């Protein structure tokens, strides 16, 4: 008999394990149906067509978020810059803008590490990323190696900037670090 209740809290250091079947799982008929579907080439093709059909909408959304991230930068709104850049990195790949997404990801990595370390971002570093994001999103050769090269260069820049302030990517300062 299966249950949908959570087991009671065990004592400290102990754990309770609930095996599949002791809680409700998909019936055999549903499981077999789902597995047949995910392995059906026609279904996979149809799903791929869905992704292609959404590219234009995604691209429009990315351009809209670029306007928003630039507005956040004009107001020195660092949390806003992170939020909008995060949206860009999430959508860009499905918009066919891979380099744009990679550059946005580098910017997010930089802002996240600084926020966790309690430091403020270098405005020039933010500005150069935003410029690169906008140019990549509008460039006809976005998908070429040029966009990837820009993303790689910016990633190295961010690594260097974080190292300058003795901040690792997870926002931690090394042991013995004394703030300037």
């Amino acid at each position, binding site marked *: 008999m299966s249950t*949908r209740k959570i087991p009671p809290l065990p004592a400290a250091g102990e*754990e309770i394990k609930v095996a599949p079947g002791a809680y409700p799982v998909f019936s055999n008929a549903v499981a077999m149906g789902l*597995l047949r579907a995910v392995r059906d080439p026609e279904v996979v093709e149809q799903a791929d067509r*869905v992704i292609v059909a959404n590219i234009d909408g995604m691209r429009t959304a990315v351009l809209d978020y670029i306007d928003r991230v630039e507005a956040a930068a004009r107001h020195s709104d660092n949390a806003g810059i992170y939020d909008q850049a995060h949206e860009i990195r999430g959508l860009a790949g*499905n918009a066919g803008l891979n380099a744009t997404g990679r550059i946005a990801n580098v910017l997010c990595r930089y802002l996240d590490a600084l926020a966790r370390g309690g430091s403020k971002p270098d405005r020039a570093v933010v500005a150069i990323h935003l410029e690169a994001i906008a140019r990549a999103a509008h460039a006809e050769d976005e998908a070429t190696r040029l966009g990837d090269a820009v993303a790689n260069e910016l990633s190295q820049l961010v690594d260097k900037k974080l190292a300058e302030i003795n901040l690792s990517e997870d926002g931690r300062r090394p042991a013995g670090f004394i703030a300037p």
Partner: protein
Amino acid sequence: MSGAAFDGLKALVVEDNVHMRTLLRSLLMALGIKHVYEAGNGDDAFQTLRDKLPDLILTDLSMKPKDGIAFTREVRLSDESPNPYVPIIMVTGHTERHRVEAARDAGVTEFLAKPITAQNLFLRVAEIVERPRSYVRCTTYFGPDRRRHTDEHYSGPWRRKSDFEKDLEIR
């Protein structure tokens, strides 16, 4: 298209970005899931969970006011959760390790990194169906067992109570 076998299957997509939400819903429908509900944040999602009782959840991580981590925690631990065992696939563009770890520790079943591909989504669904995981309850966690693989060559450290008991049995 396959279908009749899971006519009654229900899925919930939780995503604040309407474009991504539409894409995920369309992919699930292409898979043959006919009942796909949507929510734009964790609060609305929990209400939908209670109303519609989905069998599968896809959720984004970053949403306001309630994000995917808080939502997952609520699904797993709230007294008002209708199914704390429901599979949750977290769909995220986050690459920062601390965020992914927080999601895992909230009780996410699978991760799906953006950009979305049909193949990757379907692989996660197949994983959930083929290899449903045990759930673990301890003082700091309730959710799918985070230890996925048994490493035959693992030589320790052995920290779990069951490890000590096994050791005693051997002696």
